[in-house]
């Protein structure tokens, strides 16, 4: 899932301080799972903001809502009737949700309420880690199901580098060396052949920097 973390409240206060009516809009998708932007977090943020502005004797009305998914127009439309009651929206969805809302409600400032971080997993409650950088051309079949692009700090395709030590990354002793993990797993699977052959330069066309990426599938289009 997409993992995010709450933005510092000072930052949000600074964005909305000059408005009169602000809607805090959560998303019941990924950001709910990582406890950064679901309805619970909306309540907490809204309450804290009300406390702050009340204390400062500023009259700002802060309302709360949460949508099933902000990356989906059908759900974003639920705000059609009420959006005009507000001067601005703080969206606690991931960066995609914030943008999609901004696209739909062009005359409203939409502010992000979370920092969107990565595609990852819940290791345990309160601990989330990255697994995928969405390069658009999955190579996991050849790397023992462990992605060197997401897991190696130099995204090497022929690792490990000379800096790994005792299975840890040179950048931080708290980070596992992705290539060490790959090697161990390939060994377990009897697939060390994959390790011994140099991987050719990767075609990054499907990855970052080509403008927004797009998938069109005629088989599922209406």
């Amino acid at each position, binding site marked *: 899932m997409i993992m995010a973390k709450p933005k*510092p*409240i*000072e930052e949000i*206060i600074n964005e909305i301080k000059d408005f009169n009516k602000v809607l805090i809009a959560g998303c019941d998708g990924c950001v709910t799972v990582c406890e950064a932007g679901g309805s*619970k977090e909306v*309540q*907490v943020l809204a*309450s*804290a903001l*009300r*406390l*702050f502005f*009340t*204390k*400062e*004797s500023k009259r700002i009305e802060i309302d709360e809502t949460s949508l099933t998914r902000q990356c989906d127009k059908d759900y974003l439309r639920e705000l059609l009737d009420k959006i005009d009651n507000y001067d601005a929206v703080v969206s606690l969805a991931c960066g995609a949700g914030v943008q999609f809302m901004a696209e739909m409600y062009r005359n409203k400032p939409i502010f992000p309420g979370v920092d969107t971080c990565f595609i990852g997993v819940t290791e345990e409650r309160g601990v989330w880690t990255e697994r995928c950088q969405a390069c658009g051309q999955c190579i996991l079949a050849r790397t023992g199901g462990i992605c060197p692009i997401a897991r190696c700090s130099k995204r090497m395709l022929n690792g490990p580098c000379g800096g790994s030590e005792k299975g840890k990354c040179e950048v931080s002793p708290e980070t596992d060396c992705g290539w060490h993990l790959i090697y161990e797993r390939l060994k377990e699977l009897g697939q060390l052949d994959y390790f011994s052959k140099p991987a050719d330069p990767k075609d990054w066309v499907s990855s970052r920097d080509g403008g927004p990426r797009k998938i069109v599938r005629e088989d599922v289009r209406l």
Partner: protein
Amino acid sequence: MRLRYPSNLKIIRVPCSGRVAIIHLLKALEEGADGVMVAGCLEGDCHYQAGNLRARKRVNYVREILEKIGMEVDRVAMYNVSAGDGPKFADIAREMTEKVKELGPSPIKDAKKLASKKSKVEVAA
């Protein structure tokens, strides 16, 4: 035992301090409470294993929020007290009340221009 504790407390019973969520603490402040204390069982004595430890984390989180929005963090506090220890409960209730009195009325209440001047402390126990 007929123990005296400050009469300005409003006690809210919960089955376990682990039931207290962040939003409950914030709401109490929003409603004008001058302070909120969570009285959980002694650490290690939670019937549900870690309810009181979670409560402490949430209290700490709320204190962080208060600091960031410029409110006195001591308006929210966590205490651990055994369910059978009435005198200790009375002690911490007095201690919390004193602490909050020193801080003065909540700026929220001031701002809301609430008529009542009486200090009110809500307790979740």
